[in-house]
């Protein structure tokens, strides 16, 4: 594994439900290397999304720390955390979450607009990214004119707009058919090389797991097991791993 990009130390997160604290994460130690595609699997309510939100700076831990690219997120103010999300993180959601009133290229430009990148530069970068995800012909299409798989590829392009260190995807193929899911994973793999991006993917999908470099299983707020990697760098017996992790 290459140098660590993301490191969590004894990460805990509790939610209050009425009077009772409900643990969502219960001491997670995780290291993600630069350029990795890491899969996180686990049953519903196991704390996967919470882990993603903590790494992405959307939420703050009850205890423990997250380091990303040498920065301790806990030390950042709310405004700094927003800037961290803008420049260091890219988010991909299960239901794409494109802005419905903006077309593909404008959706990709949006994070750059927030980062006050000059307009011409925004357009150039956005069109390049759309080309990289195979949607250059759909640049002026509105989200509701695109298929789910196409929307998700636009979302991936948007996530990469500001050259983030890490892309966090929460069930990116959860709403896609297997053909679209495979296409999406191909796109991510090629972008990982072109953009030197690191991906952390929360998933249930064996298609996704098969394309990861490494997979962690989360259960009851803890990492319970890690996948074995074969000599070719591929995960050994990914379907079996998913089955064991989920059931």
């Amino acid at each position, binding site marked *: 594994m290459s140098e660590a990009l993301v490191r969590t130390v004894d990460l805990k997160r509790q939610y209050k439900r009425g009077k009772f604290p409900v643990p969502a994460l219960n001491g997670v130690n995780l290291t993600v290397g630069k350029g990795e595609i890491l899969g996180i699997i686990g049953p519903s309510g196991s704390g996967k999304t919470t882990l993603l*939100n903590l790494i*992405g700076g*959307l*939420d703050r831990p009850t205890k423990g720390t997250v380091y990303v690219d040498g920065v301790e997120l806990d030390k950042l103010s709310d*405004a700094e955390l*927003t*800037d961290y*999300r*803008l*420049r260091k*993180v*890219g*988010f991909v*959601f299960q239901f794409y*979450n494109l*802005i*419905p*009133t*903006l077309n593909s290229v*404008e959706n990709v*430009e*949006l*994070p750059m*607009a*927030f*980062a006050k990148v000059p307009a011409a530069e925004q357009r150039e970068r956005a069109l390049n990214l759309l080309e990289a995800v195979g949607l250059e012909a759909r640049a002026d299409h509105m989200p509701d004119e695109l298929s789910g798989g196409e929307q998700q590829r636009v979302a991936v392009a*948007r*996530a990469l707009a*500001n050259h983030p260190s890490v892309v966090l995807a929460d069930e990116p193929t959860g709403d896609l058919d297997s053909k679209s899911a495979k296409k999406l994973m191909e796109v991510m793999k090629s972008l990982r090389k072109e953009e030197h991006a690191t991906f952390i993917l929360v998933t249930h999908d064996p298609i996704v797991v098969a394309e990861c470099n490494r997979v962690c299983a989360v259960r009851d707020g803890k990492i319970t097991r890690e996948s074995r990697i074969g000599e070719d760098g591929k995960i050994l017996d990914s379907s079996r791993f998913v089955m064991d992790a989920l059931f």
Partner: protein
Amino acid sequence: MSSMSIAIRNLRHRKMRTALTVSGIVVGVAMILVLLSLAAGTSTQTSGLLRNVVGSEITVVNSTTPSFSGGGFVFNGTFPGRGSGGGGGGFVTTFGAGNTINETLVNSIENMSGVFVASPQLSTSGYVDGGNVFLYGIDPSTYSQATSDLTITQGSDLSSNGQILLNSVTATNLGVTVGSQVTVGANSTGGAKYTVVGIYSSGSTFGPLARSGYIELSDAQNISGREGLVTEIYVKATDPSLVSQIASGIDSISGVTANVASTIASSATTLSNTMTTFFIVIGLVALLAGAFGVINTMMMSIGERTREIGTLRAIGATKGQVMKMFLSEAFLIGLIGAIVGVLIGIVVSFALPSLTGAAASSGARGLGGFIPGRLSPTLTSYNLVLSFALGSLVGIAAGVYPAFRASRMDPVEALRHV
């Protein structure tokens, strides 16, 4: 992608809702503009009306002259002549000796801002065909504009020197009619020939004031030997609300005092102000309803777009950027509403007089034409700007709370929202 262009996209995305929300502001702005114009029109009409009904608003006299008040013909003091046997002549002599002011003051007062007209009068005593009479020397071209004291019932107004108007009692006593020649002079024996050109009705049939006549100011000055002097200047303001300001301006001139028909002037001002306030309150209520429409739409929009807001925050939009996006939407709603509202308000203001014309004439006749039956709004640039500004401001103001709510959403919660 500026927040403004995103706002435009969102408003166009839901055209029907935007149109309905905008129309709330349109109604408010149009109403404010029409009502402000009506208020302006009514206040113009009211002051015109009051100028007709009320005597002069200000009477300027020598500051050493005993107090004079009201419409220019009511004395505060007791009549020295009354009760002293056969004192008519004595009273007139006293009256005629009243302190004078320089005639040139008429011009300087007329040039003061807010002055509608200033008309001089020289009150003196004289003899008509040997009988003792009050003589008022006036400037016929301005007199009737400045006071309503004189109502000619037969004949016509003064048009040149050597003419006299007599009140009906005097004319009857002297046995003269319109066209008769009379001798007018400072004493019972001498004088010049004057032509009686008109007869006027007089308020009092008895007492010394009943015997009076009007002649040209220069004639009166000749008879009394007071060249270039007057005893009173009657002043009217263009607007009743300006009366007190003009009066204090006149008071600052040395040697004269401005007596204000104060109660009338101030109640006219109060009436006019009350109507304006009333109209503005109605308009503001309409605009307030529009504002609630904007708040409602914005809150609904934010509720629907919770996940979008969560997404924006997740991909790095600051609270300020989210706030700006929603404020821009509210501002645009207000701006469009203000533009359309002002246009509709202008159209309605122009259409109102002809729409209300028929009902007006019958109402006006019954009240001697004094009461404005026809609605005639007056569009002023001030009111145009005011209603436009109010509309745009209401949009922003109504957007503040929803935009604030949007910017404070917890992104994690918002993203979980279905």
